[in-house]
């Protein structure tokens, strides 16, 4: 039985890139939600959580509307890079990002808020700028929880199916991720391939969750 390992590699690559993006963007969002007071904060908070409750197909639909070939964003992309954004590996990254960002933002925000406010207040009385105290006080104190959140976001990015299918499609050798490949294998009666992929992805997820658990600060 010849198994095509491309979907696994693609999934891992997509998850790595989307997690890196999610960390950069998510850290900023989490910081804003944890520290700033502004009008519409509750709306932003709800919007960030929305992907957690909406069906993946709905998210995929939104993404298609946003970056599809007919949309302004999609047309701009096509003008710059010469090829459409949808149904590529990049679109799979976007899908995974949308799927994993809410989880990352929520856990990171909780991690930032769990740092005793008095450490930050103390740093302020010493003249430390908000930037300095974030990088040198808050982040070092919260990094274990944030890393645990990153690992979970990675696992979630790895497992996305619905959104990926909607915007990246199912092109073997180009956009077919593991989750999609398993669906494809089952559909085409290729039970052996499905079994192997299922076991591999389960093992990977198990390892990731174990790592995340060990990273989380010990409960007393």
């Amino acid at each position, binding site marked *: 039985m010849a198994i095509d390992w491309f979907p696994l590699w693609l999934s891992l690559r997509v998850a790595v890139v989307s997690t890196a993006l999610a960390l950069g963007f998510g850290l900023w969002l989490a910081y804003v939600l944890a520290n700033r007071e502004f009008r519409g904060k509750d709306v932003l908070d709800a919007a960030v959580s929305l992907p957690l409750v909406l069906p993946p197909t709905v998210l995929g639909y939104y993404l298609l509307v946003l970056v599809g070939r007919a949309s302004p964003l999609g047309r701009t992309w096509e003008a710059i890079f010469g090829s459409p954004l949808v149904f590529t590996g990049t679109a799979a990254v976007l899908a995974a990002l949308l799927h994993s960002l809410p989880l990352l933002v929520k856990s990171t925000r909780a991690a930032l808020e769990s740092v005793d406010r008095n*450490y930050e207040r*103390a740093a302020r009385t*010493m003249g430390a700028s908000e930037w300095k105290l974030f990088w040198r006080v808050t982040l070092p104190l919260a990094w274990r929880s944030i890393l645990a959140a990153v690992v979970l976001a990675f696992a979630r990015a790895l497992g996305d199916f619905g959104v990926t299918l909607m915007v990246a499609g199912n092109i073997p050798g180009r956009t077919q991720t593991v989750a999609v490949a398993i669906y494809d294998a089952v559909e085409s009666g290729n039970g052996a391939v499905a079994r192997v992929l299922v076991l591999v992805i389960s093992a990977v997820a198990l390892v990731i969750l174990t790592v995340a658990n060990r990273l989380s600060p010990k409960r007393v």
Partner: protein
Amino acid sequence: MLRAKLKKTFQNHPDSPGFVLDLEFSASAGVTVLFGASGAGKTLVLDSIAGFVKPDEGRILLDDRILYDGATGVHLSPQKRYCGYVFQNYALFPHMTLRQNLEFAAERQPRLERYRHVAEMIEKFQLGESAGRRPHQVSGGQRQRCSIARALIGAPKVLLLDEPANGLDASLRADLYDALRQVRREFKTPIVLVTHDLSECFELGEEMLVIREGKIVQQGSPRQILASPGNLEVARLLGAFNLLEGEIRMLDPGRNLSRLQMGEFELEGPYFPGHLKGDRVTICVRPEQLRVHARLGRLGQNQIPADLLNVVERPHGLRLEFSGNIRVTISRAEYERQKDNREWVIEFPSEALRVV
């Protein structure tokens, strides 16, 4: 010199009643103690000075700088206020060594001076052997001294301490008072300290502000306040008095004399300015100012009979609890001499009596 006039209103919430902070005070060199029960708004005052909380109205001046002015909308960030703050749990950064904690606090100084200052502070507060360790690896006394050193290293214009002795055992408490007395000696920084412990006021305070429900109810040296509490609330807060109901029967400013009716007995006291004949008052007298005797025939001047209900061991003697809710503190030797008394009388020395 710190001058603060603060007003802040908290609306009624389902989970917390409304609260109004409204007070004005100034603190110059030395220790000013904000004394009050928890929930009186003491910490709120510190947080307003440090810039963590924005008052609704008022003005905060530190030396010649305006930190906050409600009228013109000035509200400096904590970074620009130059207030040293010692938190209740010290808030030493747990991921840094003691030395790094000090260095972090010294970072707004020029690089060369910075290291000299850190070395000086380590020397002054005897942190030499523990400077390379993290806060959780050193003793409570070292943590405490380090947090004071860290608050002082940026040359603040005022040092704010939020119940620094809370939860400390007696020897750590003594160390803390020593460290703070050292600060008072060696630095010119005014110190504002929040506490609900009366003995701490006496240990450290030159000036004491009694705060209740967001307002200053009395102000003076700890000794003055204990000698003549301004009103019943203050007397209750101090927790150091017998508080007994009475009525003024006679006042004679000429002979500095008064007569008080307490239950069925009459006591003679000093003249009480500001009171009138017939006023219902509360008589305040400290347990250690009362004397006890065995009853021998007729009652003497200012003596009343009472039944001994209970004897409680105290660090500095014994506290006798009598009927009528009167407590008397006497030495152990005195009690040994009198413990076989059949009947007791309590003597109220007339010069010790106060009324509120």
